[in-house]
Every structure is written in structure tokens, then in C-alpha cells.
């Protein structure tokens, strides 16, 4: 039996079921990515993440109760190695800077479906993922 190269473990935090399933289907298409867990709320994420030890967490900014940005702050203090990427239906200009300050390694808008996989790959490769416009606005 051939040794399969190990895949990056991806965790998804998204409160809408249809979106959780859609992201999971999208990510499973990537040969080097594997879904290790799904959560609808920050509390559920905090409970499951220690068990499945993901490499990267894809987190919706708008969650019921604790927001995605607050969740990232908590995850950063608990698991500094965990990479986090915000996925949001809101304009980048509103939350991207906050997300980066909280410790996220990128911000991808839900409208840019075709860029989600690329954003995950970039963050896993040690890059910060933002739109060109936002990069310019934040980093000059």
C-alpha cells in the first residue's frame, strides 16, 4: 500500500447548515485538504477543536452569540499554532483589519467563492490572504 501524503486538517465554523455543507464539499475537492470537523457556534468549535487538532480553521465572522472575531481571539490564546481564516458576507473594509488584529491570517469574502480554496492554500503556505485592494488599504 502506498503511503498517502498527509492532508491538512481543516475545521469549519459556520452557523448556516447549507454553507457548512457547501464549504465542506468545496474543500474536499482539494487534494491536500481534509475536513476534520464542523461547528455552528463558537462554543461548539471550542469543544471540538482540541479533539480534531486542525491545521487551519475557516471561521464565519457572523456567528450567533460570540462573534467569529472573538472566537479567533480565544483560539489564538489557546492554540497559537492554529491558523485561522475569516470568511464573511460583509465588506472587507469593515472587518478585515479587526480580524487581522485578532490573529486571523486572512479574510475572504463569501461572494468570492472561487477564491476560497486559494485563500486556504495561501494561509497554509504562510501568507496573509486579503484582496489586493484591502492589502493596499492596510499595508499601504
Amino acid at each position, binding site marked *: 500500500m502506498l503511503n498517502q501524503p498527509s492532508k491538512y486538517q481543516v475545521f469549519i465554523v459556520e452557523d448556516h447548515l447549507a454553507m457548512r455543507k*457547501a464549504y465542506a*464539499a468545496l474543500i474536499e475537492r482539494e487534494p491536500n485538504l481534509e475536513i476534520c470537523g464542523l461547528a455552528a457556534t463558537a462554543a461548539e468549535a471550542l469543544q471540538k477543536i482540541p479533539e480534531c487538532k486542525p491545521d487551519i480553521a475557516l471561521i464565519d465572522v457572523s456567528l450567533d452569540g460570540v462573534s467569529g472575531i472573538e472566537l479567533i481571539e480565544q483560539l489564538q490564546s489557546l492554540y497559537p499554532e492554529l491558523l485561522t481564516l475569516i470568511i464573511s458576507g460583509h465588506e472587507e473594509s469593515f472587518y478585515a483589519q479587526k480580524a487581522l488584529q485578532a490573529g486571523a491570517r486572512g479574510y475572504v469574502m463569501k461572494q468570492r467563492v472561487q477564491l476560497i480554496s486559494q485563500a486556504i492554500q495561501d494561509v497554509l503556505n504562510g501568507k496573509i490572504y486579503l484582496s489586493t485592494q484591502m492589502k493596499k488599504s492596510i499595508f499601504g
Partner: protein
Amino acid sequence: MTQPTIKVLLIEDDEVDREATRRALSSSYSVDTAAMGHVGLQAALNKPFDVVLLDYRLPDVTGIDILPDLLAQNLPVILLTVEENPDIIINAMKLGAHDYIVKRQMTPTALDHAITNAIEKVALKQNIEEKQRQVAKQAATLEQQNRQIRDLALALTLAQQQERRRIAQTLHDNLQQILHGLHVRVLLLNTDLQPEQQAAGQAHIEEIENLIDQALEVVRTLSVELSPPLLKGDGLDVAFAWLADQMKQRHSLDVNLEGEDNCNINNDDLRILIFQMVRELLFNVVKHAGVDQAHLKYFTEDGQIKIQVIDDGSGFDPETLNNHKKKGALGLYSIQERLNLFGGNLEVQSNPGQGTIATISISQQPIQL
């Protein structure tokens, strides 16, 4: 029907005068007499009279001494004096006596006239007092109704605010997510197709993606217009920075921000209302000022948060704000009314050709919502 007999209390110590006066009245009036001041006062307290004839000089007191107590019973009082002494008469009238008669000039006609006048005066005074009481009562009722209307308007504004947030939330949390999900599925469907199928379906898939994008844009715009996506605890600086960005992107208006860091409104409902008012003021610049630049300043002054939207545009005569039917005036009037509900104020300084400064003022500790 006969008129009820008028009851007169005559307080007079001089027996001759007393008897003469009583006789002069007896044909038309029912007369009780008292020879001492205190006896007369007691009689007035114990029995209902229509009028009191009060001699000035009494053995125990002067008529002036018991005058206030008699007047307190709402009784018309006519002072009887021996001579026409202006000091006594003026003092008595000042204290509230209704008339005076000098005894040596007393005739049945003069008495009759004085009694009728005094009774009428008191009746008129009581009537006026009753009317005043009614007016005061109506004013209190109106005031209470005003308070109720104000409370209802406040509740309505907040309910409208919450309803807008609820609809915006539903649009964002459900419809928008479903459309995003659909978008992802179309992308996946495309990758699942064989190359020849992809070629055949490409035009359709592109059109579906295009339609989903359009639907998302409509939903997102509506959701943001209904309620801005402010996070709990976000300050005015964050909200206004986002607003400035929106005004630039969607309306090509450059908004220069100038604000104090600690300037914030803690109540979420009020913060969103203020945000929406500032947005309306910026829309006014876009629609009416004829410029592509505005200044948005926010600072604290005398315990108040002040937010100014300033432009160097075409300006207008602020008097036109009083005409609500005039284009644009209703919007500003509505902002003013809503601010008033929260104890705030809108001040507009403008002149034709000289730009506009609209200043929102609201207490840092607004009224309890």
C-alpha cells in the same frame, strides 16, 4: 318661581345702627345679627350666608382683623364705616373687601345695590376660579397625553429600529447564506462536469453565476441599508469609517473624518439611530449640495456628543425647513423629531451658496430607553 331669600349677616355693635340697618333690609333679605366681631365670625363659620355687612369699629376687634377669615369662606363682605376714611377703606379693599358704605350715607337702595354687586363679584370670581381649575385640569390632561404620545413615538421608533434589524438579520443570515451556498454548488457542479459537458453548459453556468451575484448584491445592499452591520461595542469611529468608505464606493462622495477616540454612544439602538441620521445627512450632501466632498466631525462638548456634517456646497435658506412639504425639508424635520425623542437636537446652519453645517447633539447619558 321665587328667588331664594338672600341671607345677610350683619356684624354691628351699635344697637341703633344695627336696628336701622336690619330694618332697611328686612323686607327683601333674611338678616342675622352679631354685636361682637368673634361672635359674627363664628356665625359665618357655622351657617351659610350670602353676604356679610361688617362694621369697622367693633368692641373686641376691628372689622379689618376678621376680614380675611370671612373672605376665606368665599363670602362677599361689605365694610360699614362711620366716616369716609381713605386709609381704612383702601386697606379693606386691598385685603379683598368687596365694597364699603359710609353709615350716614346708607339708604335701602345703596345697601341693595352694594349687596347685589358684592354677590355678583364673588359669583364671578368663583366662576373664573372654576374655569381656571378646569383649564388647569385640561392642561394637565393634555400634558399627560403629550407624554403618552412622546412615549409611544419613542417606542415606535425603537420598534421600527428593531424590526429593521430583524429583517436585515434574516436577509443576511438566511437568504444571503443560501445564495452563497448556491454559488458554491454551481462552482462544484462546473468542476464535476466532463470537459465536453462544461463547454456545452458554460453559457448557462456563467449566467447562473451572474444572476446569483446580482441577487447577492440586492440582498446585501438592502440588508445594509436597513441596518448597518455594526458589531456590539464598535465605536462611532469604526461605524463612521465604514460609512465614509460606503459613501465613496457607492456615491463617489469623499468624506473626511475628524473625530475624538473616546467619543461613543453605548446604547446599541441609539448608536444605530445616530448612524442612520448621519447617513441621511451625507445623502443630503450627495443629492442637494452639488459637491463631491464632505467633512464628518465628532467630538464631545459640555457633556454632549456632537456630530457635524459639513459641506461647502450650494446651501439653502434654513427658513425652508419650516415648510415640511419642501423637498429635502421633511428628511431634516424627521431627524430633528427623532432626535428630540431621545433628548437630542439637530441644528442646521446654511445660506444659499455658502454650504451647510448640520450638527447633531445628544447627551452622553441619554434618556432611559
